[in-house]
């Protein structure tokens, strides 16, 4: 079979698997976040932590819950890393330096999972499990919670209540992520992923040379790393490492896991708003952009100067392109190939995927709320064109709603371009950091700030980001890129929930058809293009034309 046909069938298998799962998983997600029933374990948990699960919150309290929870998460994760020598399984790796510890804490709490550290050298198993794995779960659950709060804003009327953050957080973790992660971890283990508490194993090769091979408790973390669209590897080479991703089966499984929840959430959304076609239209926009970018990246990589540089033999170009498109189209940022070694167009494609704002299909929860915010913007633009007050899902989009949506959309480009711009003019910083000369060097800086501000976490990893400037500025970009949109989204949800539903009229633009899909997809591309073409022209576009 030709590699192209095999690659197409491989992508087809992925799509078929996602199509099979999105209905049951989407309906399950809708049930989890709408049922008033608590399980016995949850009731016990709420009693233990002294939270009233039946007290619904206003948007402000909900947002304070998100911020407070994330704040203590950053502090605890920072302390765990700084106190590593006191923990078991530290293998003498010592305390993580302060700048790196802050960056990692910001990174894992914001669901970015950027790696400025070499895990095999820096991070012991205790911090990996008790610190990083925990944030892999709960940062994804926070994303889910915020998405559900926004959905409630659309379906409720004349209320100031959006649900209870603690209930959403606990249900997302215990009912959705934990069981799915456990099953996935066992499957990965059975397919060859390691799960060892040892630091390594010493071998003497057939040539008589002795080596130590690093080991880690990978399977448990790999599962939630993909499922929660996190992306931080337990090994430096991430999902390219044969112990994290040993064969073409695990490769497909891992791509499936990172797409499963974001894709299914569109079904959950359709179910919750009472019109499944509202969900399908979002899914179609996500799917078309994902597939289009896959075509670009795959073609570019197959025709690059060195197609196999930074790629593993077992995945090949097709398996690497499929992973690269999916990991940057969601906010995962795991890699099974080194994007830094991609061709100008292929690497530019992964960068553009992030610049779309991570909604094709986006991260767990973040993808859904990002595209809903973009839908608000799209309807606002449509309203301007026809001179009517825009509405979406029966809610008027007035000044408050559009302002909140605009703040949410503009936060990422603002922190990204400011961060990258300052880095470029700071004397000496960039010169020390770059791994490649010329236009690609600029792409490395742009990619770093795009990855941080979009909470993706992948990298043009040749860049050295261990200086205090990069560690702190990228950490700040991650936090602002995460929490400004979240607060804006919750404000939007609050103001939508307070409104009465307006009945559909002859003048209502239907939001289930191809016209709306085109408008929405066009808005995603247009916003990214208007914001980033100047920067892209100097980096990947220049490189692709060289």
């Amino acid at each position, binding site marked *: 079979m030709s590699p192209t046909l095999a690659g197409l069938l491989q992508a087809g298998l992925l799509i078929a698997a996602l199509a099979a799962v999105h209905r049951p998983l989407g309906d399950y997600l809708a049930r989890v976040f709408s049922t008033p029933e608590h399980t016995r374990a949850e009731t016990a948990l709420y009693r233990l932590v002294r939270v009233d699960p039946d007290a619904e919150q206003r948007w402000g309290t909900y947002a304070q819950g998100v911020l407070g929870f994330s704040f203590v998460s950053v502090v605890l994760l920072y302390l765990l890393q700084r106190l590593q020598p006191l923990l078991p399984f530290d293998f003498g790796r010592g305390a993580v330096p302060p700048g790196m510890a802050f960056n990692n804490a910001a990174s894992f709490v914001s669901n970015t999972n950027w790696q400025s550290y070499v895990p095999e050298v820096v991070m012991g198993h205790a911090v990996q499990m008790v610190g990083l794995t925990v944030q892999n779960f709960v940062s994804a659950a926070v994303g889910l919670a915020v998405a559900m709060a926004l959905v409630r804003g659309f379906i409720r009327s004349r209320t100031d209540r959006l649900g209870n953050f603690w209930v959403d957080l606990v249900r997302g973790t215990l009912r959705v992520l934990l069981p799915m992660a456990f099953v996935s971890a066992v499957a990965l283990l059975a397919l060859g992923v390691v799960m060892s508490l040892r630091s390594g194993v010493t071998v003497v090769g057939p040539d008589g040379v002795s080596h130590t091979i690093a080991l880690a408790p990978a399977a448990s973390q790999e599962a939630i790393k993909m499922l929660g669209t996190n992306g931080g590897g337990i090994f430096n080479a991430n999902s390219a490492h044969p112990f994290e991703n*040993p064969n073409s089966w695990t490769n497909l499984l891992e791509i499936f896991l990172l797409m499963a929840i974001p894709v299914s959430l569109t079904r959950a959304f359709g179910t919750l708003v009472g019109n499944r076609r509202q969900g399908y239209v979002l899914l179609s926009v996500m799917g078309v952009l994902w597939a289009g970018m896959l075509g670009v990246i795959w073609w570019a990589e197959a025709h690059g100067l060195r197609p196999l540089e930074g790629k593993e033999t077992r995945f090949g170009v097709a398996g690497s392109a499929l992973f690269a498109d999916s990991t940057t189209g969601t906010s995962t940022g795991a890699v099974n190939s080194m994007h830094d070694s991609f061709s100008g167009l292929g690497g530019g494609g992964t960068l553009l995927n992030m610049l779309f704002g991570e909604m094709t299909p986006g991260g767990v929860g973040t993808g859904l709320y990002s595209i809903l915010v973009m839908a608000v913007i799209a309807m606002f633009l449509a309203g301007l064109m026809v001179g009517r007050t825009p509405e979406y899902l029966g809610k008027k989009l007035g000044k408050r709603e559009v302002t909140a949506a605009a703040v949410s959309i503009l936060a990422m480009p603002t922190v990204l371009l400011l961060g990258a711009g300052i880095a470029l003019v700071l004397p000496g910083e960039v010169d020390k950091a770059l791994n490649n000369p010329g236009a690609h060097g600029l792409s490395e800086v742009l990619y770093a700030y795009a990855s941080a501000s979009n909470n993706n976490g992948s990298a043009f990893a040749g860049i050295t980001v261990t200086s205090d400037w990069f560690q702190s500025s990228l950490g700040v970009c991650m936090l602002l890129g995460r929490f400004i949109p979240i607060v804006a989204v919750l404000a939007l949800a609050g103001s939508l929930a307070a409104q009465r539903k307006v009945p559909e009229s002859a003048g209502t633009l239907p939001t289930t058809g191809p016209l709306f899909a085109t408008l929405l997809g066009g808005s995603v591309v247009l916003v990214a293009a208007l914001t980033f073409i100047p920067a892209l022209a100097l980096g990947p576009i220049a490189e692709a034309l060289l």
Partner: protein
Amino acid sequence: MNNLVKQSLAGLRVLLVLTVVTGVLYPLAVWGVGRIPGLEANAEGSVITRNGQAVGSSLIGVDPVAADPANDPWFHNRPSALAKDPLGPGDPSSSLGSNKSAVNSDYDAVVAERRTLVARREGVAPDQVPSDAVTASASGLDPQISPAYAELQVARVARVTGLPVDRVRALVAEHTTGRGLGVLGDPAVDVLELNLAVQAAG
């Protein structure tokens, strides 16, 4: 009490409970599953043992070093960004790609040097060297090579080990993994397992 402080304290309590569940119980449960016979070998790194000695992992590629480069009996792995020399062995205590871009003249020179070295070792023209033989893998630990690169090395390995060419070629075929389900990934040859098989046959 300030509401944000109150929410943060509630957050701390929730975080601690979820840490016990997802950061302690969950990984230990998966680790426990990894103790089941049949899964334990996977969990501990798919280590291959010969005569009681661990000789490597079937999942980890570390390029073997020939005692006499003029009589090199080994099939070789892909270049590794972890190696000091252009073709030297990587160090599996870490993992790394080169992250060199396609527009990088310094790296063009490294690739050209690898091509010359491989061509000389195999006694072929430089343009016959397949691209995976001169490019660094993503992990620096790629356990496999393309069937084309394995085929390129068959004649030399047969000559040095004294095995018939057809026998070596059959061993390559035995250690070639096709695409999963016929469509997933690319065909690849596991170098360590192949070298052990050649060693056992010789």
